[in-house]
């Protein structure tokens, strides 16, 4: 590679990192937080004794997991306007990713709740706790530990999935790389740089995951 490419690369680091800071990272964090809230509600609904509520949750999970994320994104950004619902690119992306995380994480959360022994429910009952209090004080804190590995996978996938938002003109890491690469034709250099930044973000998150698992597991046999 000639010096010009190196210079372009060096000058691109700033804009790409900015793309991650204003686009990729907040997009990931917002969507994950909203997605987890949706997922918890869907998981509890899926386990509801009410058959209708449980089926609605099951259908939701099935649709989210059975259709491509890119199609979900396009429906919200390109198709909803035909029904009179126009949403800006950035919020469209947050909505699509949140709904997607909601569907995937719901199954992880449900599995982690079911993994808690029934004796914990019974012990909570005998000290006078109802459903909500038992969930909040006894089941969810333990389920969280079980759910961290699968939810971390969801989170790390989400970091990479936010690159799909480039297709609806959201300014994020990949979009920035495209914008610089197109006029200069330096696709190899720019996309490699983008890949490197994604990889760095995900590596940091993996480290965070390990620490979180250790923290949540502190009460398990020392």
């Amino acid at each position, binding site marked *: 590679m000639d010096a010009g490419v190196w210079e372009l690369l060096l000058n691109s680091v700033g804009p790409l990192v900015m793309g991650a800071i204003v686009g990729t990272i907040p997009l990931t964090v917002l969507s994950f937080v909203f997605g987890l809230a949706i997922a918890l509600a869907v998981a509890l609904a899926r386990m509801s004794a009410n058959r209708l509520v449980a089926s609605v949750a099951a259908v939701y999970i099935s649709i989210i997991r059975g259709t491509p994320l890119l199609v979900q994104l396009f429906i919200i950004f390109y198709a909803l306007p035909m029904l009179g619902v126009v949403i800006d690119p950035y919020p469209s992306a947050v909505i699509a990713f949140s709904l997607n995380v909601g569907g995937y994480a719901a199954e992880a959360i449900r599995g982690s709740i079911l993994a808690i022994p029934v004796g914990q429910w019974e012990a909570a009952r005998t000290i006078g706790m109802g459903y909500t209090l038992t969930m909040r004080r006894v089941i969810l804190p333990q389920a969280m530990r079980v759910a961290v590995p699968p939810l971390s996978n969801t989170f790390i996938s989400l970091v990479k999935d936010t690159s799909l938002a480039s297709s609806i003109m959201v300014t994020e890491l990949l979009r920035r790389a495209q914008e610089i690469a197109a006029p200069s034709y330096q696709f190899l250099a720019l996309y490699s740089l983008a890949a490197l930044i994604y990889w760095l973000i995900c590596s940091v998150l993996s480290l965070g995951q390990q620490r979180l698992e250790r923290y949540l597991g502190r*009460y398990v046999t020392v």
Partner: protein
Amino acid sequence: MSVVSVRSVRKAFGGHVVLHDVNLDVTEGSVTTLIGPSGSGKTTLLRCLNGLALPDAGIVRVNDVTIDYGAKPSREARKALAAQSGMVFQAHHLFPHRTALENVIEGPVYVQKEPVAQARERGMALLAQVGLAEKADSYPSQLSGGQQQRVGIARALALRPTLMLFDEPTSALDPETVGDVLTVLRDLAEQGWTMVVVTHEIRFAEQVADHVAFLDGGVIVEEGPPAQVLGDPTEPRTRRFLRRVLDPLADGREEQA
């Protein structure tokens, strides 16, 4: 007035009848032990007393809470029944993510809304009472089986129930820790707690119980004071059971002879 009265309680799982029209009375301040072979319905009967098991028919009264299972019991009635008693499980079921003290004060603080400082003080006193004051900040996984079981007893006592239920509190323990737990039970009995204890510890029943009920096949076959039921049983089934429990190899020897 008796603390517990059970009338014609019937319970089946699927088609399998586990309790056949069982009657039981527990007088205030007494220790009742339920003994009997595996699968005879001891745990199920105990769980009917706090509503963890729902009888198909019959009447269960604990103090002034009465549920007639002729009709579907209301949520409130079940809650009221459950609130009468504290329960100690065979497998302790402590909350693993909370320390010993946190386990004990969980109910007082979050269910009974007791101020935290006061609950902690009472919790520490309860842990001291079961000999575990210095383990207050340990997680259940850091405790021995006997210690876990004693935390479970303190957790149940913390809600100030009027009746204490124990389901084989020593069966899952190493032999050397059984004594610590039985000592706590004996102390509670001496303090006047009304207790129902499912146990295989015949010596404990002899020494501590006021009343022994022998179950077999979902029926109370024989009941009365320990001296009679354990010392001089009239029913052949009771005799056979006691022989087996007191000398597990006896049957084999008889057959070989």
